[in-house]
């Protein structure tokens, strides 16, 4: 795979991440919001190269978020740390489904970073904030497992970047 193609493909993954988050309203269920593009975090399970596309998507989305730069640092930090951990774990665990479950758990645990952001800025009680934010993240990432697997059957993500 040429370097240029990998670069351009990641740029388009980021664009798709942003386009979907802007066009599709989040699926809401029992007042917990599931943001569809968060499922893209599972792309890194198929190929480490998707790391840049996903992080860039988060970066640009946060750039336009009402919380501005403050959100940017924590939002990007959350994705970089979580996906970095996943890439490390990928060295020992090879099974895709297992990796996706691990990825879901990583993102749920590291939501503490976002809870910390809100605690720092608003001095809200940490655990209450953590519980509400982590629940939405866990939901969408768990739902993302079968969705991304179904998509992978047609797309073959490993070989695309």
């Amino acid at each position: 795979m040429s370097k240029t193609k990998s670069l351009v493909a990641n740029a388009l993954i980021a664009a798709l991440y942003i386009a979907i988050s802007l066009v599709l309203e989040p699926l809401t269920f029992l007042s917990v919001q599931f943001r569809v593009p968060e499922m893209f975090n599972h792309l890194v399970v198929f190929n480490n190269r998707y790391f840049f596309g996903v992080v860039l998507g988060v970066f640009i989305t946060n750039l336009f978020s009402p919380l501005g730069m403050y959100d940017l640092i924590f939002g990007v930090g959350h994705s970089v740390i979580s996906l970095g951990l996943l890439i490390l774990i990928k060295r020992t665990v090879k099974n895709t489904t297992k990796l996706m479950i691990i990825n879901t758990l990583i993102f749920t645990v590291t939501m503490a970073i976002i809870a910390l952001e809100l605690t720092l800025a608003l001095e809200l009680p940490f655990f209450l904030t953590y519980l509400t934010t982590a629940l939405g993240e866990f939901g969408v990432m768990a739902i993302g497992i079968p969705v991304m697997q179904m998509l992978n059957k047609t797309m073959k993500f490993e070989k695309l970047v």
Partner: protein
Amino acid sequence: MASSLIIGQYVPEESVVHKLDPRTKIVMIFAFVIFVFFANNGWSYLWLTAFSIGAALSTKIKLRYIARGLKPVWFLIVFTFLLHLFVTREGDVLFDIIGFPIYTGALIQGVQISMRFFLLILVTSMLTLTTTPIEITDAIETLLHPLKKVKFPVHELALMMSISLRFIPTLMQETEKISKAQASRGVDFRTGPLKERIQAVVPLLVPLFVSAFKRAEELAMAMEARGYKGGEGRSKLRELEVRARDYLAVVVFILMIVGLFLLRDM
């Protein structure tokens, strides 16, 4: 559909803030985000508020427009204020609201924390209000330049960001088109059991991914055919330049910070 295609919040105006080098703006706003946490009394908050509103006015963007941009976070600000008002128990009891005693300390803390959050959002939103996404990309590329020494792909990242920004509107249009096409075939994203709604997302994502990768392939081929070989020796279309007004803005900002620290002890 046209309105949903506006990405970011950039408002073109002929103001000093718009003309500042994007790097100056990013560095100052970043510093502001840190220094806002140093405010510790009414005077220091008032000082920061005056500075932020002054800065907002100098952008020449209507304050009403900026306030509308803050709409999604009003709820969070009010919620935080109320939470601190009822939970904090410091100082004397000010009055009772249906059995809930409100303390002076709670009122002060509630006001200060909501104020701080408001300032954080107001000032950070000024970056995207006065700077185009492309300018932000250029600024990030030069600001991250030192990271090249540790082999961080700064140029590639900036290029990815520009390509991404270019394709967001195209892919948004496509997302909208495909979701409408699927809806006309009876796919329902909004109602029904969660499992069915999730399944409905798949036929939307497949064509989107296919088209995104097809575009990527074509663009990569076009770039290579035109001799793209990475960042080395590439010249730039837009050059960033630090001018006198940037130095002036930094001086004003430093004076504001000095003022903040003097007011902290009052």
